[in-house]
């Protein structure tokens, strides 16, 4: 079991509440006939408003940890508190509600729906919420404006660059006004200029108070974070300097 404490010198100026509290979290699953121990006892606290990156070798459990944090997967054992809710013990309906309202997700491959426009892709995130139609349109426009793609609302993903597609994905994640944005290799499929573009956007959102947790191989991304974690062989280590 590994305990991670925040370094007082690198803590944000404000003293926010703890958003995530993980206690002895383990995750084991079967893949192609073999047992995979993705997480082997993770203890972790993430503060509200923090910008955390998780680095590590391939197969180290980074994506699994992100999925547990994102309520996409439940740990095999341990506790995962998001605020007051224990994700490990939550029902399927509670997890669906959590994902719909509290958690925004950004993927390496953008994962946009190719047959829908940028605005429609963003609108998909509001579908599970009971938002009136007029307000939905307003929020979609606002989210696209925040990521600088207001004029591309009617374009389909195939008509957008990689960077633009990732911005649409970020807009989709933030349109629901989540408490946390989880990003799995957000710049993995982008070239250098687009990477900087996305990073700047993420930093801006974080500066506005959005908690940001990103899995990344890219050290350039990790350097921009306030806190850096390393996950290898299912164990988390804080490598923030």
């Amino acid at each position, binding site marked *: 079991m590994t305990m991670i404490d925040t370094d007082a010198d690198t803590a944000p100026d404000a003293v926010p509440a703890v958003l995530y509290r993980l206690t002895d979290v383990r995750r084991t699953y079967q*893949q192609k006939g073999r047992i995979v121990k993705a997480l082997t006892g993770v203890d972790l606290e993430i503060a509200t408003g923090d910008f955390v990156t998780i680095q590590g070798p391939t197969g180290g459990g980074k*994506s*699994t940890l992100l*999925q547990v944090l*994102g309520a*996409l*997967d439940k740990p095999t054992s341990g506790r995962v508190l998001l605020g007051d809710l224990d994700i490990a013990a939550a029902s*399927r*309906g509670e997890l*669906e*509600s959590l*994902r*719909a*309202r509290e*958690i*925004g*997700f950004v*993927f*390496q*491959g953008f*994962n946009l*729906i*190719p*047959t*829908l426009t940028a605005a*429609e892709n963003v*609108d*998909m*995130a509001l*579908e*599970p*919420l009971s938002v009136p139609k007029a307000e939905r349109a307003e929020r979609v426009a606002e989210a696209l404006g925040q990521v600088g793609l207001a004029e591309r609302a009617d374009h389909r993903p195939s008509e957008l660059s990689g960077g633009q597609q990732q911005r649409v994905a970020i807009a*989709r*994640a933030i349109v*629901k006004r989540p408490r946390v944005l989880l990003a*799995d290799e957000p710049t993995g499929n982008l070239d250098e200029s687009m990477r900087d573009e996305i990073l700047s956007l993420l930093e801006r959102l974080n500066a506005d108070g959005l908690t940001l947790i990103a899995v990344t191989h890219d050290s350039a991304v990790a350097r921009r974070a306030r806190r850096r974690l390393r996950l290898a062989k299912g164990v988390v280590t804080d490598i923030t300097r």
Partner: protein
Amino acid sequence: MYARYLRRELAGRKKQTVIVASGLAIAIALVMIVNSLAAGVRDAQAQALESVYGVGTDLTVTGAQAEPGEGTRGQQFDFDEDAGATDEEGTTSIEQSQLTTEMFRSTLDASVLDTVLAADGVEAATGTLSLTNTTFSGEVGQAPAESPTAEEGTAQAPPEGGAGGGGFGGGAFGLDSFTVMGIEPDAAAIGPLSSVTVTDGRALESADAGAAVAVIDASYATTAELAVGDTMEIAGEEFEVVGVVASTSEEADTAANAYIPLDVAQDLSGVGDVLSTVYVQASSSDGISAVQAEIEEALPDATVSSQSDLASTVSGSLSSASALITNLGTWLSVIVLAVALALAVLFTISGVSRRTREFGTLKAIGWSNGRVVGQVAGESVVQSLIGGAAGLVVGLLGIGIINIVSPTISTTAGTTAAAGPGGAAGGGPGGQAFGQAAAQTATEVVLQAPVTLWVVGAAIGLAIIGGLLAGAFGGWRAARLSPAEALRSVG
């Protein structure tokens, strides 16, 4: 958003949508056409039967079939020495008519009608006597004599057979026949004449009992060149033609060539107080089976036939068409439908597998399982409805083409007297052939394929069922998709 996403997905997967919809369209069109044709064949069979048994006949009662030689006797024409008329050249013209019943079917005693009327559930009943009028006619010549020429003007006696004189001098003979049915003059609501219209003159009336009057079939009137007011010979007796009747179906003839009062038919044929067929109308369609059972018990020697039994008497192209539609048509449409449904299910499942990342993403951004399943199911149902609509159009088009072409098919209906192989015992030449004529009515019916609510409903229903089935399988597959696994598998 639901409808928009659905529309975009189907448009984005045009090829799959077209394949699934086409498969269902073909299957549904086939089911429609087969069902419609089956209904058309049933109507045609009913029409064929109607020309023989009339409207409103639920059951018929007939005598038992007799084996050849079993009390049956072939026709025999006997001529006396001085029969016929002999002309100056010694050629003798002879003619004789006989009125006979069906050769290989027993008749019923007239009291059978009272027995039938007394049965529970019988609304009405009437009896008929089916006869055939056969006329043997010809000329017999006198062979030239070897003795000196006879004096002119002296009628020469026909030579005795084999004894001196000229012997048989050759001859020409012919047989002519037409069917005659003795009916109760006032029975118009049931029986063979319940489905005819009077095209000239009048129908038989109760006052015609015992009178030598006849009503003839319109087709027969044309071929025999008879009209109202003319006289015709039946069994050597003169009958006045008082009316001409035609079947309600343009292509069908009525059950007999001529109709005369029952008592007259019985007297003229010399068969006594008997009937060939009793036509029975039940009080309700639900009670037909019970009525049939009661009559069979009361008349164990008789044959009691229901509509479905009568339908089996329909032969010819119509019965072939019926067999084709029932066997090949039904099986073909079942197989094609099964293949179309399987295609729809497989494509839906395959689509869900290909969209693993998409559905995983939707679940990740907060879509509930039910919402995702609903999307998959909705896409399947719409795909199937497109196929259903196309199938409905193609099916209606196919039915329309059949109705435009309106194939005419021949059929015969009625009880068939079995013709014994060597001819009737003691009968003259050709005696056996005429026993069949009275029992069958040749009909040509136009095959139509009716469009019924059932056919349209079946088409729509199949489309919806197809969509729901495919949606259920696809939805189940989508529901089982764990977002973490889905994203992990493509991560």
